[in-house]
């Protein structure tokens, strides 16, 4: 692998990600770990540079947690026929919100009893346009079972598949900068927010502002799922940690009277 100067930012981001994942306090200590290949770090390091796109069913343990635990709690709190709102932010080119939709259809027995709204947001209008188009390559589908691909996608050419119109129509896309409350607030309150692998790239101040915005966008008792290297406890005390069998997630306390 080789990277030009133009890719410097990309390289820095990947290294920063690995430093957080290994709890390295400095580049020097991370570099020492890499040189010694501690706990197979060389492989993790290489993967960090090759997995540069998202894909369907990424971190599917959180999707299991969604249908096993989170929605059950939300339904218990809201009632058996209440609408459920889920937010995927940032949604990039759509793999995450469409994954949520497919996962619910395949794995949540109550899917027909509830009005479900999935909102998918990103700051980048170009990726939002791609997400709306719903056209994906082989790599994006690599973790989906063949029968799921056959059920929800139609092939378009040798290495491209388009997600069914029913699913494309079931996700609402909006442009959002999550550090701007004037952009986050119009999206309303959600039962579950997926905000994975973005806060890690913010500075401390921006992380705190984003956390408060996301807090406001959650129903009291609603959940937020972060990326596996991220911890809300290090960013903001506004949320409770909830540990489930499949994932650690964060919850807006049900009784808070603000926000």
């Amino acid at each position, binding site marked *: 692998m080789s990277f030009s100067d133009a890719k410097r930012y990309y390289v820095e981001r990947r290294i920063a990600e690995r430093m957080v994942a290994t709890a390295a306090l400095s580049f020097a200590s991370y570099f020492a770990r890499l040189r010694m290949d501690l706990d197979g770090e060389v492989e993790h390091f290489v993967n960090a540079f090759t997995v540069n796109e998202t894909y369907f069913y990424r971190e599917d343990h959180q999707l299991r947690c969604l249908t096993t635990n989170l929605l059950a709690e939300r339904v218990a709190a809201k009632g058996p026929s209440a609408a459920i709102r889920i937010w995927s932010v940032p949604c990039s080119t759509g793999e995450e919100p469409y994954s949520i939709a497919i996962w619910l*259809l395949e794995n949540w027995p109550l899917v027909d009893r509830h009005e479900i709204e999935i909102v998918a947001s990103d700051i980048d209008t170009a990726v939002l346009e791609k997400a709306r188009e719903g056209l994906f390559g082989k790599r994006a589908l690599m973790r989906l079972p063949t029968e799921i691909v056959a059920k929800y996608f139609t092939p378009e050419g040798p290495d491209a598949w388009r997600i069914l119109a*029913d699913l494309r129509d079931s996700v609402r896309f909006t442009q959002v900068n999550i550090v701007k409350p004037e952009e986050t607030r119009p999206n*309303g309150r959600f039962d579950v927010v997926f905000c994975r692998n973005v806060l890690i790239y913010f500075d*401390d101040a921006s992380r705190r502002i984003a956390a408060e915005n996301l807090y406001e966008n959650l129903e009291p008792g609603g959940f937020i799922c972060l990326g596996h290297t991220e911890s809300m406890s290090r960013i903001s005390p506004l949320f409770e940690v909830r540990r489930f069998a499949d994932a650690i997630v964060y919850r807006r306390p049900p009784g808070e009277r*603000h926000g």
Partner: protein
Amino acid sequence: MPLIRKSATPAAASPPDAAKVPDAANVLEALASGTEEERWEAARAAPGIPGAAKALADAAKRETSPGVREAMFTALTRIASPESVEQLVPLLRSDDAWLRTAALDSLRAMKSLVGPYVPNLLHDANSDVRLLACELAREQPGKESAALLCELLETEQEPNVCASAVEVLAEIGGPEALPVLARCEERFRGVSFLEFAIRITADRIRASSSPKPRA
């Protein structure tokens, strides 16, 4: 195939409308005497309002809701001005540990604004303040901070403050810190946790500054 439908209506409960321009007087009044919801809203709206830093710091001192207090400190961080630093620095001396920590976190996020305050804070009469100032030094440019921390270590009498400085030097210190660490270890002979911390730090600095063999 079952269909996941788009909701035809907007979410019943929405967060407050951020597009509304906050009225400065109302925000300051709400910070001082509003309901919990009003205080949260005021804290979120405060950045950009003249005089907000002082009002936020005053309100944070008496705030009882942890969530609202957090929003007040985030607002002070967003303001990121000499005025907000001036309001936060005295809170490092608070008897309330939560206030001290919250002020520290906010100041750490305002690195360049805080830099000029660090030398004085490292010489503060209050050892708790000196200890927290070591954390602020961590965020400053490496060489300058290392020099300040070395200077502190030469005279500091409180082992906990020394430990805090040593911990930061483990990250940012160079070979010039080694003799200072040795003298500090000598002065605190018998204080086992500090001796241990100094040895680890010195080893780290030696390891990171010795020439690496080519692979």
